[in-house]
């Protein structure tokens, strides 16, 4: 075990059960907000965001059933691959990449702490931006991801529930702020100024995934 891993392990409240709770929580949040997400998407996109994500996270649930004993990183990689295959549209490749990159960052560690989780989520965001080339202010899921990760960095050393609460609050504020933005990426950018006044569905679902993460810790 490297020194780095020992440090991460020193306060390592996260394990495979935590990741399983997170992924199941994601499925529950997406299912509960499915119609809302689809409504948001109808204003700026294909009207399929909620339905597609719900289908994908239901499939992730089945994968978790058969994934007993896997390390948390591998759980996330498998969830990501399932989302790529089952969600479709832009959300499938984006969230699929996010979970896969987070999983790869966790590697084979059985437990991990806030610092390693923050690194994993940073890797997830890097995967998203490599694919979409979106920057903050483009009215995409990046507008929820970036503030959440900034909040996690600011909370370095804080207890897990506090850090994740700060991340959720930041992600929700980031998603809300997309309402005033003009879309510059994705299908919504076809609408140009007409996209102003609608909250971005991708940023909204990202905030839900951070909420599920917070609840998995609490």
């Amino acid at each position, binding site marked *: 075990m490297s020194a780095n891993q020992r440090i991460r392990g020193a306060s390592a409240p996260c394990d495979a059960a935590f990741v399983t709770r997170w992924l199941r929580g994601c499925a529950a949040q997406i299912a509960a907000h499915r119609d809302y997400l689809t409504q948001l998407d109808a204003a700026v*996109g*294909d*009207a*399929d965001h909620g339905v597609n994500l719900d289908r994908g996270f239901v499939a992730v649930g089945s994968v978790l059933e058969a994934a007993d004993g896997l390390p948390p990183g591998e759980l996330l990689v498998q969830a990501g691959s399932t989302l790529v295959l089952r969600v*479709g*549209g*832009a*959300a*499938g*490749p*984006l969230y699929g990449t996010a979970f896969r990159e987070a999983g790869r960052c966790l590697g084979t560690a059985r437990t991990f702490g806030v610092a390693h989780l923050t690194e994993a989520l940073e890797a997830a965001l890097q995967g998203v*931006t*490599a*694919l*979409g*080339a979106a920057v903050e202010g483009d009215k995409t899921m990046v507008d929820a991801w970036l503030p959440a990760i900034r909040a996690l960095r600011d909370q370095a050393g804080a207890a897990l529930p506090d850090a994740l609460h700060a991340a959720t609050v930041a992600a929700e504020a980031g998603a809300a702020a997309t309402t005033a933005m003009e879309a*510059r*990426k*994705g*299908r919504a*950018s*076809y*609408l*140009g*100024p*007409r996209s*102003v*006044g609608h909250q971005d569905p991708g940023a909204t679902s990202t905030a839900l995934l951070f909420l599920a993460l917070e609840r998995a810790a609490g």
Partner: protein
Amino acid sequence: MDRAARILKALATGPPRSGVSELAERLGLAKTTVHGLLRTLERQDLVEQDAETGKYRLGPEMLELGNAFLDHHELRGRSLLWADTLANRVGEAVRVGVLHGRRVLIVHHVFRPDDSVQILEVGASVPWHVSALGKVHAAALPNDRRRTLLAGALPQLTGRTIIDPHVLAVALEEIGVAGFATEDQEAVIGEAEIAAAVFDHRGHPVGAIGVAGPAERVTPAGPSEAIVAAVQDTARRLSWEMGAPRRHAVAARRPRVDAG
């Protein structure tokens, strides 16, 4: 006339509703001038005034004009049946587009023939370099017009968008030789398009027709051969109808219209 046209374009591209002072400031015109022009446009139903806020927005007559544009668009008119036939043949959505400045204007869109929710994109426009329609149209243009397109802004819409003008120039050469263009998740992640140019009686490109759909079906490992064949076949027959010379066209019977 020029100032009235600028007001209409400002209303079309700015916030959905604008006040007289906002418009005057944006266009660098006197408030009284803008007010007078708006009143004239309002009498023609080209703009309307919101009763509550007093702000102006585009009026219903604009839609009539837009529809008339589409109705009189020759490529669109001639592509209606061909686009339906192509969509049924490959089981994906079909779009017809024409270069307009630095963007491709979608003039016709046939939904993928399944029961999924799809949004009509007629009237939407996308940057030319992120669209197979735009790339294949550009590849068929004379060198000077191609250079102008390559010299302007090339915004990045995804991580796969080609934004290097030199790379894009090479791609256009290859597209010209191949006779079709592929766009693989360069505009929207997860979506791809394969398109071929349509030519008129002078042998000039007038637009393009393409098949758009999920990247895993349109570009599973490079462009789908079946879709490329269907798109090129359709473009040649459509070009024949436009009176294009033989190097661009294949004699075509009008596609049969299936009942219902």
